[in-house]
C-alpha cells in the first residue's frame, strides 16, 4: 500500500510539473502563434491589426493556462496546446 501511495504521489507531482511547463512555455508559444495569425488576418491596417491582436493576447494566454490545469490529463493538455500552436503558426505562415 505504502509503495502504491508513493508512486501515486510521484505521478501527481509529475502531472503538476508537466502542466506548469505546458502552461508557461507551451501556452506562451501557442499565444505567440495565435497573436501572429490574428495580426495577419485582422481586417484593419497593419498597425491596428498588430495592436488589437497584442491587446487580446493576454486574455488568450490566461485562457490557455486555466484550461491546461483543467484538462483531464497533462498529456491531453500538451497535445491540445501544441495543436493550437501548430495550427495557428501554420495559418500565420500561410497568411504572410
Amino acid at each position: 500500500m505504502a509503495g502504491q501511495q508513493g508512486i501515486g504521489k510521484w505521478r501527481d507531482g509529475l502531472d503538476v510539473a508537466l502542466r506548469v511547463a505546458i502552461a508557461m512555455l507551451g501556452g506562451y508559444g501557442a499565444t505567440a502563434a495565435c497573436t501572429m495569425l490574428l495580426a495577419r488576418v485582422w481586417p484593419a491596417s497593419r498597425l491596428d491589426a498588430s495592436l488589437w491582436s497584442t491587446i487580446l493576447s493576454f486574455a488568450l494566454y490566461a485562457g490557455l493556462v486555466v484550461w491546461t490545469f483543467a484538462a483531464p490529463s497533462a498529456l491531453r493538455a500538451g497535445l491540445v496546446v501544441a495543436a493550437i500552436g501548430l495550427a495557428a503558426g501554420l495559418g500565420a505562415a500561410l497568411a504572410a
Partner: protein
Amino acid sequence: MSQGFRQSQAGLHTWSGLLVGWILYLIFLNGSVSYWREEITRWAQPEIGATQNVQTVAHGAIAHLTKVAPSAKSWQIELPSERASGAITTYKPKGKPVSGGFRRPDPTRTLIGPDGQVATARDTEGGDLFYRLHFDLRYMPVIWGRWVVGFCAMFMLVAIVSGVITHKKIFADFFTFRPGKGQRSWLDGHNALAVLALPFHAMITYTGLVTLMVIYVPWGVTANYPSLKAYYAQSIPKTKPLKATGQAAPMADIGLVLKSADEVWGGGHAGLIRIENPGDKASRIVVTRRASDKLVDGRWEITFDGATGAVRSSVAPQSSGMIARGGMIGLHAGRFAPLTLRWLFFLSGLAGTAMVATGLVLWIAKRRQRLPDPARPYFGFWLVERLNIGAIAGLPLAMTAFLWANRLLPVNLANRADWEGHAMFLTWGVTLVHAFVRPTRRAWIEQLSATAILLIALPIFNLLATDRGLPATLAAGDGAVAGTDLTLLALGAAFAAIVLAVVRHKPGTDRRKPARVATQPAPRVELKPALAEVEA
C-alpha cells in the same frame, strides 16, 4: 461547472498566488501610492510651493534657457500640472548629445519655481521612486524589472480568473464575514477584498500588461513589421530635425503659443514644450498635451513655427488600435482622474494590496492547523511565514523610512536622492532579517508598531521642524502637502489599529477575537468546513 474543474483552479490559484505574492504585494502597494506621485514629490520638496500661474513659470523657463543655453540645439520645458510644482528645463547642446543614462540626472536639468525663478530644492526622487519601483523594480536593469513585473502581472491575471472560478458563490461570499474564526476569517477577508474591487483588479492587471505589451508579446508586431523599430516609426512617427539657418530671429511669445494650444485642444493644456533651434529663423515649437486632461494616452502634439507662432500641424491618436491601447494605459495610470476618482483608484489599489496580503496569510493560516508540531514547522512553512512578515509588514516600514530619509538626510549630501532610496532598501533588509530572528508574533507586532509610530511622527516632525506643518499648509489651502500629511496620519492610525488587534488577540481564542496573526494552531474543529469551502 464540474467539481473537478473548480478544484483544479483552486490548486492553480493557491500556488500561482504564492509564487508571485510578495512581488505582487510590492507592485500593488507602490502602484497605489503612485496615484499620489505628484503630491508626494510636492511633500518631498518643501522648499517650493504650489504653482499659481503656469504662464509665469513658462516665461521664467524661457528666460532661464535663453540665458544659459542661447545656442542650444533644442530646449525642453516640462510644465507643472495642477498637482505639481514648478517646471523642469533641460537642453541639448549642439553637437554630440550627452547621455545622462536612464536613471542618472540630466546635468542640464534645472528647476524653475512657481515664481518663474530658478529654484533650489533638495535632491529627491519623491513620488517618482514609488512610481518607478512599481514597474522597473530597482537595482537591476530596467528591462529585467519589467519582465519580472510582467511575469507577476500575468500570474495575477491567471489568479483572478482561477480565483473567480474557485468561488462557488461569489456574491454570497461578498456579504460574508465571520471575524475571529481564524482561517475562515482570513478567507472571508480575502474574498471580500477581492470581490469588492474585482472590476478594478481585473482592469488594473489587464491594462498594466497592455502598458508594456510590446515588450512581453512582440509577435503581433513582428508578424506585420520587419522590425520593432519599423513599428515604432509608424506608431510614434519622428519628425525630421529642422536645419538651422544661422540667421537669428526673435522667438514667438510662449504665452501666446500656449494660449493657441489650449484653443486647438478645446480647453486642453500643454504639458511639455520642446523648442528646436531656439532663436533661429528656422525654429519649431512642439507642444505636447498634458496627461491630466484626457483619458487616451499617446502622442498629442501641436507644432508651431518658432518665429511666428503659427500652427504648423497637429496630431492626436487616431486609429482604433492606438486609441484602445492609449485608453487602457490612461485608465491604468489614472492621470486623468480628478480628486474623487483618484481617491477611489487609491483605495481600490490598497484593497488589492490587502487582498494579496490576506491571500499570503491565508496560505499560512490554512497550513498551521495541519502542522504536527507547531513549534517546529517544516521548512516551507517556516520560510513563507517569515517572508510574509518581511514583505507585508517590512515593506511599508521601508517606504516610511524613505520619507524619513527625505526629511533627515543632509541637504548637501552627494547623491542624496540615491541615498533616500538606499535608506528604504537597507531598512527593508533589516526588517527581513528581523522577521527571521524574532518569534513570529513579536516580529509582526514590532514591525507594524514601528511603521505606525514612524508614520504618525512624520506630520509631527513637519510641524515642529519645518514651516510646512499641517496648520500652515491647511491655512494656505495647499491640498497636496496637507493631504499627504493627513493621509500619513490616517495610515499610521490604521497600522496602530492593526497592532492593537494583534496584541489583543490571544492565540487559540479565535472564536471570540478578531484579527488573527497568531503563532499557535487554532482549534482543529474549524479545519474541515473551512477547507471544504475553498477546495470543494
